[in-house]
């Protein structure tokens, strides 16, 4: 008898054994299957009932965040350097050569011929995040950024300090807590100095020098005020 015969016989024997139907509890199994299926369906419905309100709440929150500008703020705070540079890009290509001069040095010599501060593209990156408060929507953000770029152009390119003063005021009115508002306030003070409105310049720079608006431009504003004091008769 060969091995193949042995395996073939064993296989045949196993087939015969399994061919004899065992008294399978088919009905009990059927009921158990349907019962388990029902349970799964109920569980699925329950999960949907739980998930739907959560999903709806998330959608509402996301919609509110998008509409209120919170979403834009979150994204803006992820990349402050890039977003701060954005509005100044238009002006950055033609920044005045004096832009790199330290304001305090020039102010000490002649307060009314104040050197302009560095372009915001270089300085806005250090703006404290506590000032960040973007506008209501992305479209609004674009409009506000355009106001900033316009003021920057008038101030540093056109040297139109009267126009720039109005433009800075317009920007600050549109975004009093905007991420570039500290820079705008400081520039507004510079414009007032250029226009010879020293008292108003002092009033504008004093809160910055006192740190009421954070530490950004605090030192520069303080140096300007000291220079004004020294130059005063």
């Amino acid at each position, binding site marked *: *008898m060969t*091995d*193949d015969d*042995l*395996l073939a*016989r*064993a*296989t045949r*024997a*196993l*087939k*015969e*054994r*399994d061919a004899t139907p*065992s008294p*399978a*509890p*088919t009905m009990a*199994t*059927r009921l*158990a*299957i*349907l019962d*388990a*299926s*029902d349970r*799964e*369906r109920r569980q699925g419905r329950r999960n949907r009932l739980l998930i739907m309100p959560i999903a709806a709440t998330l959608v509402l929150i996301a919609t509110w965040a998008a509409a209120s500008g919170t979403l834009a703020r979150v994204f803006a705070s992820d990349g402050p350097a890039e977003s701060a540079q954005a509005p100044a890009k238009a002006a950055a290509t033609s920044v005045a050569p004096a832009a790199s001069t330290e304001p305090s040095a020039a102010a000490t010599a002649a307060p009314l011929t104040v050197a302009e501060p560095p372009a915001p593209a270089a300085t806005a990156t250090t703006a404290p995040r506590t000032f960040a408060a973007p506008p209501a929507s992305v479209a609004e953000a674009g409009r506000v950024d355009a106001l900033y770029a316009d003021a920057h152009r008038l101030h540093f390119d056109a040297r139109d300090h009267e126009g720039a003063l109005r433009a800075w005021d317009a920007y600050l009115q549109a975004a009093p807590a905007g991420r570039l508002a500290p820079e705008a306030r400081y520039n507004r003070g510079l414009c007032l100095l250029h226009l010879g409105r020293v008292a108003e310049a002092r009033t504008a720079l004093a809160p910055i020098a006192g740190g009421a608006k954070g530490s950004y431009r605090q030192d520069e504003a303080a140096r300007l005020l000291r220079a004004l004091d020294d130059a005063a008769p």
Partner: protein
Amino acid sequence: MTLAIVPAACFENDASGLVDRLRRQDRLALGEAYDAHQAAARRLARRLVGEDAAAEDLVQEAFVLLPRAVHNFDGNAALRTFILAIVVNCARHHVRGAARRRRLAERYGGEPRALALDGDAEAGRRDLARLLTRALDELTLEQRTAFVLMELEEHTSIDAGALAGAPEATMRTRLFHAKRNLRERLEAWGAR
């Protein structure tokens, strides 16, 4: 005629719309699918795991999974083939559990007995079947599945490959190794 060229599987699936109803989580459809295919599923399960109780659990698990799994059913095969494939997929831990129980039973009941077929032929065949079941426990699940599908269930290597989710050539190779290992075991245990 149409009857000659349309596969039977198409009639099975389309005539009752069973698959569509299963996809819609129709409770009655699950019962109908069970009634129609439980015997084939139970026989395969019994041969895969080697005992009735575990086979019953395996059948139950396969049919409970069916309403969810049927969303992956593309209609190229018969629904029965699809259900048997679920049985094969679910078999792993049932096979392990059943094999473990058999080994424990043998440990307390002694080593597999050598066969004496000269006496009672019927008893000899039962012993041979029992010994082959024991030898199957020594195979890998893949080899065991190949042997069960092709030798016991008599599927072609193509069908077996479809059920086990493996290429046809792989199934033939697994069967070859399974047979060699089974012969070695049967010989070692004194089967004649």
